[in-house]
């Protein structure tokens, strides 16, 4: 007993320290969101309250406008990404393609290069085309960046569909198009939905691209968070951060429901 007990206490302390390191920064965010007044040297907010939540969620406020912009951009990004990725994913999974490996790598490149250097030039090109500071410009920037998720995951989803089921449909007289829309696509749907969620979150959380391409007209939640934080308004910044956090955490809890092992094992192949 005398030998076991210190070990257990030490382990518990270690776990507590780790829990503090992981949850502490998030706890600080929550504290700030309920702090109406908080200044040095007070360890905790001087006045607690919901005032800033009311400011953020006021229907006519800047935050709700940014939220609406963010969600519209994310939904449009999903539409654009899926429109090009479903055909591409199908071709990569099912058809014999020349340079298949190279094509797969090309979709990874936007994630593998330092983004700032690319975005400053995209913004410069967009000025010439009249796309700078427009929703459309931001949407295609987000879509190109997220293509690696949508193409790789939809391709894995199509690869995981049992070929025999497609052949059975063809044998009983279904056309290739009908087979695709009634057999292959529905069976691949959970994987495609998973890729759509990835793209949605990638767009919702995107900061750097919007920072260069969206200014000065497009203000998304991450841009609002940034300007509120740099302006010293930690309450608005923290509440905005919490709004951005919610979908990410929900996704982490439910990702396995959409992304089954059979699809996961085929990603990137």
């Amino acid at each position, binding site marked *: 007993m005398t030998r076991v007990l210190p070990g257990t206490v030490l382990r518990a302390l270690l*776990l507590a320290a*780790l829990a503090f390191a*992981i949850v*502490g*920064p998030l706890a*600080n*965010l929550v*504290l700030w969101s309920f702090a109406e007044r908080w200044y*040095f040297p007070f*360890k905790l907010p001087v006045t607690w309250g919901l005032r800033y939540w009311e400011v953020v969620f006021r229907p006519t406020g800047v935050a709700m406008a940014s939220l609406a912009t963010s969600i519209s951009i994310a939904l449009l990004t999903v539409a*654009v990404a899926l*429109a*090009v990725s479903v*055909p*591409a994913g*199908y*071709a*990569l999974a099912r*058809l*014999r*393609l*020349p340079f298949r490996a190279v*094509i797969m790598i*090309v*979709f990874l*490149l*936007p994630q*593998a*290069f*330092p*983004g*700032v*250097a*690319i*975005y*400053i*030039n*995209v913004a*410069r*090109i967009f000025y010439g085309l009249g796309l700078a500071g427009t929703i459309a410009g931001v949407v*295609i*920037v987000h*879509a*190109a*960046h997220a*293509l690696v998720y949508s*193409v790789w995951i939809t391709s894995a989803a199509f690869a995981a569909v049992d070929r025999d089921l497609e052949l059975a449909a063809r044998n009983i007289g279904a056309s290739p198009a009908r087979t695709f829309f009634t057999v292959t696509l529905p069976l691949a749907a959970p994987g495609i939905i998973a890729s759509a969620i990835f793209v949605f979150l990638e767009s919702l959380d995107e*900061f*750097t691209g919007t920072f*260069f391409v969206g200014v000065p007209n497009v203000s998304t939640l991450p841009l609002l968070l*940034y300007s509120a*934080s*740099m302006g010293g308004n*930690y309450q608005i*910044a*923290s509440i905005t*951060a919490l709004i*951005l956090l919610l979908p*990410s*955490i929900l996704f982490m809890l439910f990702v396995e429901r959409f992304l089954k092992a059979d699809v996961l094992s085929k990603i990137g192949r």
Partner: protein
Amino acid sequence: MSSQRLFGLLLVTPALALVTALFLVPLGYSVLSAFTHADGSIGLANFAKAFELYSGDIAYTIFIVVTSTALTGLVAIAIAGYLTMGETSWLVTGLAWLYRWPLFIPFIVAAQCMRTFLAKNGLANNTLVASGLIDAADTVSLLDWRGVIITFVWKQAPFVALLLAGAMASIDRATIEAARNLGARRLRCLIEIVLPQVAPTLMVALILSFVTTLSVLSVPLMVAGSQPTMLTVDMAFRINAYGDYPVANALGVVSYLMTAVVAWFYLRTALRERET
């Protein structure tokens, strides 16, 4: 070319066009701009100016990214190693539940968290003071290079640990059991038996983490002051304050080169793996 191949290429074309227009073209543009002088001639003057103004920040960026990646690796090995070889079941369960939380948190949210958490009057200092570990007079703000590194490790270690724990779970348990039966301590077993088997996974995860931290703009902007700072912030400043594309793009090419160095390591590992 068979009709199936042609149809396949047709299906891939829209997606490739999107990447070409929004990545390959701007990439080419940035390299071209970096080597082109104001009078249209080709040369290295933009790089000379970039080094003259920002050599300190280039060194600082390398220091931050390399240190963050190394610490991320150590923390991830500790987490994944304990998840695989830990013998206290409640600690393994607790750790498995805890460590993933930062995984999907956006960098900008992580930056805002740390901006408050690591401040002089933040929750980190206040908790250390309240628990008697440090004196209230000794608290310092960690919102400088330390804060940037802490934020990167906080955000990236779960990602590397997740990949590493997956790789560790799939190695042959018999080798671990054999070493344990011969009396090897767990730490030695982890270093000499388990780590060599998951080294390729660790390598890939750390390379991805390296490139990610090299690209982030929000964390150095929000967590640390402006001098010294990382190349991403310098590029943004060069554009927003001066509209100076040539020097900003020269810095961009420097960051591509940093990526190229780790990509070379990756390719070398990948090729070696294929040979065996």
